[in-house]
């Protein structure tokens, strides 16, 4: 009969309270690990949203705002960029390519992005990954559209379907451009970036649907799709544009020139730097979350301590019996410690299982809501360290009731006066 088996047999009698203790440890472990996993994976996913683009240019506003609305489709532009200014900058000697973006419409909750077919060639994300078509091909005609992977999957669209886009960010009947439906020509592969949730159309398409809209509401003309085609559909303004330069060493000079552009107030940002800057501003929140999780853990451990101390009274007879058959006082301490160790290890195992369960279940929701893809990563060294700290901490705490049991076992005889 070794101590561990005695501890386990004894634990079976108190299994209800111990199971609850295991759960409370499990929840704090899930929280601690979860905060760390989400933070790290969220950061990696966030930083991979856009790459291979040297500058993003939009009407003058803060860099974070420009990044968020142009790349993440969060928030709104303060103003548009005139077509003239865009052409002037695109014609610079140091510019290799540009991709214009026109925002402001939506389709059933998904943002519509007016752009050129160059978008599919030059938009990069992650480690030099490019957009690829799952089915179909890029838009060609004025009323063609390409859907991101999530749009097609959630709304059940296929190549050849017709969709109607709406003015503004919420799709309602009265704001729909319903006399000018678009035909889906292509559906993109999943990228785990906000592109998955975009509806891509040509700039001409955006102009066509707005041809009879003045000041944000539909005016009396009510032109249909074919009539709109007879107008000149060159845009007068766009929302933002992406820039690739010939020589990256000239990035700062190009940025300064654009920021000082005389014809119009513009801002140019380096996406890489702005992504890092933005993530840094929320690092305080990350640390706060971590501190909160540590407090939850402490609460869980104190709860466990309370449980063990309160059951010690019930176990005085059991301990006395053990002492009577020859257990040393140190063994009594070890009994308590082993039981706690068992509870905590079980708590960690259940906590990890709970964590992966939550990631698998809630991960897709988070991806949709926040545009960051978390997946199911393996636990890394830091998270292993967190778990070991939990185990060590709990074991050390269990020395307290262990010591109490030790003292009592020395004083109690078999006839205990409870």
């Amino acid at each position, binding site marked *: 009969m070794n101590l561990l088996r005695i501890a386990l047999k004894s634990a079976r009698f108190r299994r209800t309270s111990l199971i609850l203790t295991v759960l409370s440890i499990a929840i704090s472990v899930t929280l601690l690990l979860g905060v760390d996993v989400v933070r790290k994976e969220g950061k990696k996913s966030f930083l991979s949203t856009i790459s291979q683009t040297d500058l993003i240019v939009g009407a003058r506003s803060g860099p974070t705002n420009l990044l968020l609305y142009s790349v993440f489709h969060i928030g709104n532009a303060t103003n548009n960029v005139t077509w003239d200014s865009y052409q002037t900058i695109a014609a610079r000697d140091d510019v290799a390519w540009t991709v214009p973006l026109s925002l402001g419409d939506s389709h059933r909750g998904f943002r519509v992005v007016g752009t050129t077919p160059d978008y599919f060639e030059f938009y990069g994300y992650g480690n030099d990954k490019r957009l690829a078509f799952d089915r179909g091909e890029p838009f060609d005609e004025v009323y063609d559209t390409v859907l991101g992977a999530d749009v097609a999957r959630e709304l059940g669209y296929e190549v050849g379907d017709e969709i109607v886009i709406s003015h503004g960010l919420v799709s309602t009947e009265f704001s729909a451009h319903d006399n000018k439906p678009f035909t889906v020509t292509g559906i993109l592969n999943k990228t785990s970036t906000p592109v998955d949730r975009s509806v891509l159309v040509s700039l001409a398409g955006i102009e066509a649907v707005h041809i009879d809209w003045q000041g944000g509401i539909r005016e009396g003309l009510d032109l249909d799709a074919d009539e709109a085609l007879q107008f000149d559909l060159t845009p007068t303004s766009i929302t933002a544009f992406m820039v690739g330069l010939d020589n990256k060493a000239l990035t700062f000079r190009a940025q300064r020139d654009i920021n000082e552009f005389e014809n119009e107030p513009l801002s140019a940002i380096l996406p*890489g730097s702005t*992504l890092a800057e933005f993530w840094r501003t929320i690092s305080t929140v990350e640390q706060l979350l971590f501190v909160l999780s540590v407090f939850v853990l402490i609460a869980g451990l104190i709860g466990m301590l309370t449980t063990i101390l309160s059951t010690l009274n019930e176990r005085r007879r059991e301990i006395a019996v053990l002492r009577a*058959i020859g257990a040393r006082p140190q063994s009594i301490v070890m009994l308590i410690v082993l039981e706690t160790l068992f509870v905590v290890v079980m708590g960690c195992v259940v906590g990890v299982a709970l964590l992966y369960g939550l990631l698998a279940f809630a991960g897709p929701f988070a991806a949709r809501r926040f545009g960051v893809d978390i997946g199911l990563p393996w636990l890394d060294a830091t998270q292993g360290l967190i778990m070991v700290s939990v185990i060590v901490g709990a074991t050390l705490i269990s020395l307290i009731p262990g010591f109490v049991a030790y003292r009592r076992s020395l004083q109690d005889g078999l006839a205990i006066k409870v």
Partner: protein
Amino acid sequence: MKTPQKNRQNTMRTSASFLSPCAVLLFLALVAAACGSNSAEFLADGPPPSLEVEYGASIDEWAAAAEESDSAEGTEDAENESNRPSTDPAYADIEWDDLVPEGFSSDEVWSKYLDEFDEVEFGSPEEQAIYDKVLAEIDPDVIDPALDGQKIRMNGFVAPLTYDEDIVTEFLLVPYFGACIHVPAPPSNQTVLVKVDKDNGLTTDEAWGAVWVEGTLAVESSNNDIGAASYAITGDKSGVYEDF
């Protein structure tokens, strides 16, 4: 009360040796130490310490401020090997001024015109004309072709361009803090494009402060009509710069 005799035989074996208290706790402590030597990243991974440095500060000012705050806190980072560049003699230390070829640095250009400045009146249009001549002659794009292929080590600040997961693998190295965001741009011969692989890249927290880079400098000509060439480094290693 009499204690039981020590050599009374126990009817119960109380513990196998591997369950003895010391062994268990020692094992746990060893495991904790082994993992802990990785440095508690989740505690240290926060914003960099706030140094009293303003945008536009050079490496020397940054290092001086870091040294001040270090000595104020009494921290010692001597064991942190990954933050020190190798003392590999194959890499030559170079300064930002070395990137500008002989005779083209702004000091040298100014000194050529000092005599002319002495001859004209302060604030006159002739002075402005000379001033314009000087500025026109300081060519921010001129590079030193002799540096092509050299293995060098240099310090600077980072404007990240490309990430591999959360490691910066491609960035622009500039001479002063904040060049990526606020202060006017450095000339192209003071902007170096650095590429490192993921193992030797920088974390986003490291990229906020001064860094060092070791690698092979290359002069890359651009393929447009401006004809400006620039420097690029294929980095072998990089890390946080500490004054030593």
